[in-house]
């Protein structure tokens, strides 16, 4: 089964995955577009926790997964570049967490905001590059002189900028709240 969801808080995402396991839907992976894949199975209590980290090389990513495994957490979903890293507690202890301090738990939001911010800056610079190309190609620059299909990439980029912008605002609000308590 697949479900599409977007979360602005890690705690809520963890609670969602664990509640699905209670209903007999075992989380398998999360695709890049935000689809959660589940396998049907026995109703059970699982303890899934989420970290946020992006890796520059495969070796660091492997080392990261091995350290979590040493601590009793199996890596179940996430790639070196995906950001969200999903871990399943191997001994099923419901109270086990992957964070033992508040600061380290909150620092996930800082890393996520940083990546989103880089993405939005990249997207904005792509948009300007595209506009520049249009400008040079059409000697009489006007919107109507450019074929409709050539606007598609620009429209996609602008949609993505809006999407990231909204997410940055929502996540930043949560992050500020977490810092307070």
């Amino acid at each position, binding site marked *: 089964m697949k479900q599409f969801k977007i979360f602005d808080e890690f705690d809520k995402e963890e609670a969602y995955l664990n509640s699905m396991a209670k209903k007999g839907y075992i989380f398998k992976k999360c695709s890049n577009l935000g689809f959660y894949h589940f396998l049907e199975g026995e109703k059970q209590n699982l303890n899934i*926790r989420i*970290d946020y*980290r992006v890796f520059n090389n495969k070796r660091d990513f*492997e*080392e*990261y997964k*091995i*350290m*979590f495994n*040493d*601590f*009793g*957490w199996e890596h179940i979903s996430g790639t070196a570049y995906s950001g969200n890293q999903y*871990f399943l507690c191997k001994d099923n202890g419901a109270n*086990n*967490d*992957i*964070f*033992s*301090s508040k*600061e*380290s*738990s909150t*620092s996930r939001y800082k890393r996520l905001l940083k990546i989103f911010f880089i993405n939005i800056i990249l997207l904005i610079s792509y948009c300007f590059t595209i506009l520049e190309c249009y400008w040079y190609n059409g000697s009489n620059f006007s919107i109507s002189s450019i074929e409709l299909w050539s606007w598609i990439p620009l429209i996609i980029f602008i949609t993505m900028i809006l999407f990231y912008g909204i997410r940055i605002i929502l996540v930043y609000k949560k992050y500020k709240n977490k810092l307070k308590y």
Partner: protein
Amino acid sequence: MNLSKKLPLTETTYYILLALHQEGHGYAIMQRVEELSGGKVRIAAGTMYGALDNLLKQNLIISIPSQDTRRKIYKISTSGIELIDLEVNRLKNLISAYKFIKKGGS
């Protein structure tokens, strides 16, 4: 970089730096910290990974070559030793102020 700007240390950082006077990988550090704290401090996986990553970036610990290619082995650096000495001095001052008040000083 002025080391005293990094004070005070978090409990996690303090114990990791102490434990790394002897080299070790992530899980071994956690076990040593648990031992050092009399079972009171159990550093979790994500917290440990983040702390080691930060300490490495600040050159307070170093990663040393080992036979185990799958796990990084860490050790405290000279500036790490300097930093923990600064922290212990800070803590000593706090404790002596406490003792002074408790003895009824004014």
